[in-house]
């Protein structure tokens, strides 16, 4: 399989000069500035001076060292709670909620501090999956820019005072209606409370608003099925998946759920060689598109035309004027859809009601209802309707709103007509914000009553109908905040309030007035689930309903706080179709297809078009001040800390005269982090931002990510109000959104793009490492795999056979060491890895990995222990993409180990490549010698730089400094050393978890159960692509994968180097008939590589 040529950048594709240079100068470090130091080096130091200096420094060191050691205090509790034992982590079930996103989670709490979020495996919806945002959300709790107290008219005040002021204000302005503006709410109790609250104010209404709207789908469903909601999707039942611009693996609706479902259709082995076929029609390279088997490009304005063409092809009586490549694709997709009626699904990311009606008609034609689309359980993640919001903004501007209460929504930032909203809110006499931060909307409000972070809150969430998960607080509120529901209950007054019955149990909440949300919540759910015991079980599980039946009441009550140890990953059960037990139901379709088709036909496409998308990391942008997310490389562009205009190579050529396929031009553009800046104008608004030329983008499309460019009204306040990580990161492109009277459109048909002549640096993480054409990835197509599964590894097996019978022992001069007890191994399935990056953030959180900031990333100093490498292959216009999570391979014959002069890195009897930080002297020989490039060096003191004043000020970025504060440092894992400057570090296979798991087994006098010990990346993965276990156990998951189930797909990266790595990969298989990748015909270029290298190293030698 060596013939397929992979490339990570255009430079690598073209073998440009700079690229070749970078091959030799791998770490891109400038040598010591010897020229500048000539004077110093040549100076004649008298012997006596030398002795004086040496004497002085010895004396000074002795003096400093003999200073008294500090006196440490050990302060125990005054009254220790039974459930907290210092040094032991408790896990509590809760639910991540943000902007309508709902992910049931388990939160790891240590000494009363939440420090890590894991998925809740009891949830039938997510099955323990998480996303990068969920993983990172624990850091938001400790964000230094959170609001710390309530404010009235810009000044701090107590809640009591503000309550009274608001009560007076609301009475005074009772003449005009009150409006409650929130993001999509999924909580049944909150909605109940809101109903009660609004009942007090005649004419009051509740408007739900989403930063990125799904209104088109909701309205289309109302028109088609009479249901003003979204259905739940079941990708796992689909053999054919067609997505029209829906990034369902990255950002669309509920990617955690869809990742899990999608992976179930992509898990494959030689015994069951079946997988789904995925067609993607889109205008830029999305994460989902990167995973697709067949991908077709079109302009964003043509989405409707694609949908129409597809409907026509599956038998609808409509016509479409779609031509070109996409039309070919539609034909192929339609044929597949028709061949798999009842096992197919079409989803569409458009926010146009008419397009979505057509998509509904297609799903009707292919029998998706009740099979892959379930109307019995609705998806409540997004509920906002564009017209409601537009009406509200008009009412505000007309002065027709008496009071505006904002919770969770931030229209002053992410509404397309933010200026109009801002103007309107100024005309409203009473404005109240419950947002956690001083965001763009909150700073315009008269009263600010910050609500709790979800980790400090009680609550419930019903993401999908019937699947309710509960939220319980993991920490006492850090600041003077009050939960939104508490405020409403207080204002409703005692009439509807419930009286507190169990005041001892709720000693945590400060005000026990009897109408608090906690009591309300408890009463509500106790009544619903039938008794307090059931309520406690539901709270313990985090899941109501489907979860409750799983546990019996006789469960040991002592285990209430340390629940859920049953999260083993059993891929065999995943392989089984878990949804067979569920009954899905369809709905009867009555949409006006002809009318919708006529309106779509009227859409005009322009010359150059823009399309707005969300990044996997930041989404709509309300977590913009999260440094972990900001530093998370985009799966496709690998850029951090910024948004940019993604354009195709064709547009790059016409605009900047950069021919990306020309060696010299590639260097002009690619190697230098400075990128040309353009001005993009659409709908009369313009933004200025840098350009990234990437493969797989439609020649006439400019793709821009929303969620960046958070700015306070006074930009000097942004760092203080919104946060230091968000400050200066990217440009806000929400103003380019347009409104067509029914829906907001996330594209614009007539956009102009012009050069400004400026440049702007973009910090990309990948281009740092190159593979030098070595075969590190294996892939094949489904048909070839079925025909001859052994072909995948044939070439390598032949190569290794030359070293003798037993490659492990015969191909080395080093002795062989036994691994008598455990031997840890990991298996990563490239077929189910979608590149979602949840593991990267999970690794950050688990292992105290520092945030280095944009400037450091640009200097290749990023610290991710686990990175997801992205490789392109095939045509640069529309390439195939492959993701490969790359972490320390824990080689049994590790090249890094034998070059360490101080044996700081060596091998354990369990197969771990150990790194002893306190022994490391920072020579970086190991990083130099690591063929996988997974070792990371601490160039600065990224976590403890505040140890003395002005330490490293100006050297490390402001965003990194933000993490050097006692508050964010509360998130650090106390079981993992915090590394300081000058130390090498790398993936440890989460050795702290291995040690803990072994210790638990020893304490319980048993062996370690398979699946009991999980690494952070494995646990975070929504698709279970990563599996980890003891391979000395022949029955363990990894042993079985390697030796039985996936014998043919298994491979080790750079196995021929005899590194004997402990991480194996499973080859990617694409369900396509195309020939994947280029054929490697440049054997002479390989020689060329070596030639250059030698020549250059000669040069370096003197």
């Amino acid at each position, binding site marked *: 399989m060596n013939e397929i040529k992979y490339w990570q950048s255009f430079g690598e594709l073209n073998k440009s000069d700079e690229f070749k240079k970078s091959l030799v100068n791998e770490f891109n470090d400038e040598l010591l500035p010897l020229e500048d130091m000539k004077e110093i080096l040549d100076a004649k130091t008298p012997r006596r001076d030398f002795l004086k200096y040496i004497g002085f420094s010895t004396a000074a060191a002795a003096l400093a060292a003999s200073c008294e050691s500090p006196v440490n205090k050990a302060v125990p*509790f005054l009254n220790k709670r039974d459930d907290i034992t210092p040094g032991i982590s408790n896990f509590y079930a809760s639910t991540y909620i943000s902007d309508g996103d709902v992910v049931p989670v388990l939160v790891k709490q240590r000494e009363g501090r939440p420090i890590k979020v894991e998925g809740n495996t009891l949830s039938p919806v997510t099955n323990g999956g998480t996303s990068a945002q969920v993983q990172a959300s624990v850091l938001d709790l400790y964000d230094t820019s959170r609001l710390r107290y309530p404010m009235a008219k810009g000044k701090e005040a107590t809640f009591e005072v503000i309550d009274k002021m608001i009560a007076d204000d609301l009475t005074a302005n009772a003449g005009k209606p009150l409006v409650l503006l929130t993001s999509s709410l999924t909580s049944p109790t909150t909605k109940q409370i809101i109903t009660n609250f609004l009942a007090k104010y005649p004419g009051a209404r509740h408007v739900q608003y989403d930063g990125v709207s799904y209104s088109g789908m909701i309205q289309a469903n109302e028109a088609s099925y009479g249901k003003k909601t979204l259905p739940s999707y079941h990708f796992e039942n689909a053999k054919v998946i067609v997505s029209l611009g829906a990034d369902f693996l990255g950002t669309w609706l509920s990617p955690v759920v869809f990742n899990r479902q999608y992976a179930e259709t992509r898990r494959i082995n030689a015994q069951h060689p079946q997988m789904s076929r995925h067609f993607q029609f889109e205008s830029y390279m999305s994460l989902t598109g990167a995973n697709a088997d067949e991908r077709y490009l079109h302009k964003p304005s043509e989405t409707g035309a694609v949908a129409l063409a597809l409907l026509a092809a599956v038998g609808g009586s409509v016509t479409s004027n779609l031509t070109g490549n996409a039309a070919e694709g539609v034909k192929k997709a339609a044929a597949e859809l028709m061949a798999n009626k009842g096992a197919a699904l079409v989803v569409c990311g458009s926010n146009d009601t008419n397009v979505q009606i057509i998509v509904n008609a297609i799903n009707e034609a292919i029998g998706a209802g009740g099979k892959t689309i379930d109307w019995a359980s609705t998806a409540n993640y997004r509920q906002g309707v564009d017209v409601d919001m537009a009406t509200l903004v008009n009412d505000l501007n007309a002065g027709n709103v008496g009071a505006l209460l904002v919770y969770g929504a931030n229209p002053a930032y992410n509404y397309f007509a933010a200026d109009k909203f801002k103007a309107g809110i100024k005309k409203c006499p009473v404005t109240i914000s419950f947002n956690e931060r001083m965001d763009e909307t909150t700073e315009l409000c008269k009263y600010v009553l910050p609500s709790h972070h979800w980790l400090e809150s009680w609550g419930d969430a019903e993401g999908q109908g019937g699947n309710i998960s509960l939220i319980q607080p993991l920490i006492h509120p850090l600041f003077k905040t009050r939960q939104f529901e508490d405020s409403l209950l207080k204002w409703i007054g005692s009439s509807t309030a419930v009286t507190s019955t169990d005041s001892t149990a709720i000693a945590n909440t400060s005000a026990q007035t009897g109408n608090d949300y906690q009591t309300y919540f408890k009463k509500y759910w106790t009544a619903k689930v039938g008794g307090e015991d059931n309520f406690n079980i539901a709270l313990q599980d985090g899941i109501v309903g489907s979860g409750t039946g799983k546990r019996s009441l006789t469960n040991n009550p002592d285990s209430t706080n340390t629940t859920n140890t049953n999260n083993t990953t059993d891929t065999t059960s995943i392989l089984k179709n878990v949804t067979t037990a569920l009954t899905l139901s369809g709905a009867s379709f009555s949409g006006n297809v002809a009318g919708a088709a006529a309106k779509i036909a009227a859409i005009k496409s322009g010359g150059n078009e823009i399309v707005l998308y969300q990044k996997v990391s930041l989404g709509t942008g309300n977590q913009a001040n999260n440094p972990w997310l900001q530093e998370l490389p985009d799966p496709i562009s690998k850029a951090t800390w910024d948004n940019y205009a993604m354009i195709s190579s064709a547009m790059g050529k016409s605009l900047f005269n950069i021919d990306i396929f020309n060696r010299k031009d590639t260097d002009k553009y690619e190697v230098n982090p400075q990128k040309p800046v353009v001005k993009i104008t659409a709908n009369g608004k313009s933004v200025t931002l840098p350009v990234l030329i990437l493969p797989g983008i439609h020649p006439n499309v400019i793709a821009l990510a929303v969620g960046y460019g958070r700015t306070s009204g006074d930009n000097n306040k942004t760092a203080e109000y919104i946060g230091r990580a968000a400050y200066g990161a990217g440009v806000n492109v929400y103003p380019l959104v347009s409104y067509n009277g029914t829906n907001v459109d996330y594209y614009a048909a007539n956009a102009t793009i012009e050069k400004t002549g400026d440049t702007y640096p973009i910090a990309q993480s990948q281009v740092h490492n190159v593979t030098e054409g070595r075969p590190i990835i294996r892939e094949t197509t489904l048909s070839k795999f079925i025909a001859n599964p052994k072909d995948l590894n044939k070439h390598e097996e032949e190569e290794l056979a030359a070293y003798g019978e037993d490659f492990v022992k015969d191909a080395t001069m080093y002795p062989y060491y036994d691994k008598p007890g455990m031997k840890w191994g990991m298996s990563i399935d490239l077929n189910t890895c979608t590149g979602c990056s949840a593991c990267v953030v999970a690794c950050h959180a688990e292992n105290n990995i520092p945030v280095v900031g944009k400037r450091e990333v640009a200097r290749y100093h990023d610290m991710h222990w686990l990175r997801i490498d992205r490789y392109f292959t095939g045509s640069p216009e529309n390439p195939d993409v492959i993701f490969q999570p790359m972490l320390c391979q824990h080689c049994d014959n590790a090249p890094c180990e034998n070059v360490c002069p101080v044996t700081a890195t060596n091998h354990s009897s369990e197969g771990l490549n150990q790194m002893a930080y306190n022994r490391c002297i920072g020579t970086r020989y190991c990083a130099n010698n690591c063929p996988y490039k997974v070792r990371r060096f601490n160039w600065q003191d990224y976590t403890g730089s505040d140890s003395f004043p002005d330490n490293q000020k100006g050297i490390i970025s402001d965003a990194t400094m933000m993490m050097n504060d006692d508050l964010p440092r509360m998130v650090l894992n106390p079981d993992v050393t915090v590394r300081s400057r000058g130390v090498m570090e790398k993936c440890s296979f989460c050795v702290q978890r291995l040690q803990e798991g072994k210790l638990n087994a020893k304490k319980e006098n048993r062996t*370690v159960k398979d699946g009991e010990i999980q690494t952070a990346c494995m646990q975070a993965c929504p698709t279970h692509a990563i599996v980890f276990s003891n391979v000395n156990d022949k029955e363990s998951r990894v042993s079985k994968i390697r030796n039985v189930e996936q014998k043919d797909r298994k491979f080790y990266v750079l196995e021929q180097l005899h590194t004997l790595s402990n991480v194996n990969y499973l080859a990617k298989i694409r369900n396509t008939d195309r020939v994947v990748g280029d054929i490697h015909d440049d054997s002479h270029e390989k020689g060329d590589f070596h030639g250059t290298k030698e020549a250059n190293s000669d040069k370096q030698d003197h």
Partner: protein
Amino acid sequence: MNHYRRFIGTTTTGIFFLFLFSFNNNLFAQDGQAIFKSYCASCHKPDAEFTGPPLKGAREREAAAGLPKDWVYKWVHNTTSMINTDPYAKQMFAKYNSVMTAFPDLKNEEIDAVLDWANKYEKPAAAASATGTGTAGEDDNSLLYGVLTLILAVIALILLQVNSNLKKLSDEKQGIRTPNPVPFYRNKAYLLLGIIVLFLIGGYFTMEAAIGLGRTKGYQPEQPIYYSHKIHAGTNQISCLYCHGGAQDSKHANIPSVNVCMNCHISIKEYTGEPITREDGTSVNGTAEIQKLYEYAGWNPDLKKYDRPGKPVEWVRIHNLPDHVYFNHSQHVKVGQQQCQTCHGNIQDMGEVAQFADLSMGWCINCHRETKVQFNDSAGNGNKFYSIYEKFHDDIKNKKYDSVTVERIGGTECQKCHY
């Protein structure tokens, strides 16, 4: 000369050990004492009334009441049901007004061991002072060696000098001319020797001092409350785990919270034991120290209620490990079955706690090299976790070695403690 010294060494050590053993005749009852400490000591005293009756003479009392010999086993294994059915148990309940916690896991032999030990129990004062004398004897001997060596060295030097002088005289007599003698302080050989010796001695001490930087063996800071382990763990035999329960569950042994102290001190208001003296000779008022505890707890002993907000005690931390070291108490106490004293010394004899071991890496590693793990055998003894080490089991079966040390299962690898 050397032979002589070695002889003295062996003899003194031998005498010393003999000495020790002769005073440690309670060694056989050690087992009973250990069980007593971990199970019984919080409610029973061996020879006095406490929450429960004294254990000394329990057998006789039962026999006097006409109970069979196995009554006590039934009682310890299942107290609650006995309270309702057994007349003697009812009588006891009436007297002490509390039900003893049942210990169904205690074996009959273990109960016997406790009772036997209690019957033989004597006040420990005499034994402690005897051990003290033993230690002093060892110190005297080493001083003796030192002085002896020094004297012998001087004599040897003088003899050498005399020898060379005599040689010179005899040479002169025979007419062999020798160059004028250089005084020894000008003799280059001597000077070089001296410099080398000084360098070695200096180097040795510099290295020792450098290695010892940050190590605080013997560190004994003054604490906010004079808390005596000698009184609690020594005299009153309170099990270590009663207060430091974390030692068997968690990585931290945990200093008890104030409410744990108040469990007992709610009724123990004054100190009535033997006078307490600090190491510098000053005396400590035990009752005043208990008052300090009440200040922290916010307890009013007269009104018998908490009448003010309490505050936690800010103890001075004695055992400090660097941040890059991971140490887990439960691994050693629960899994490794180590006694607290192994690392913390004779804590039951300490007034204010002092650091016993230097907590250096060498000290850890040495123990890991020597200590045997509780390797499981076919009879079901030992920890079943180790059943995965098939190779070692085979080797033991083939008599290659008879036990497995911590080192052999990887206990000296970097990432067992540094991650």
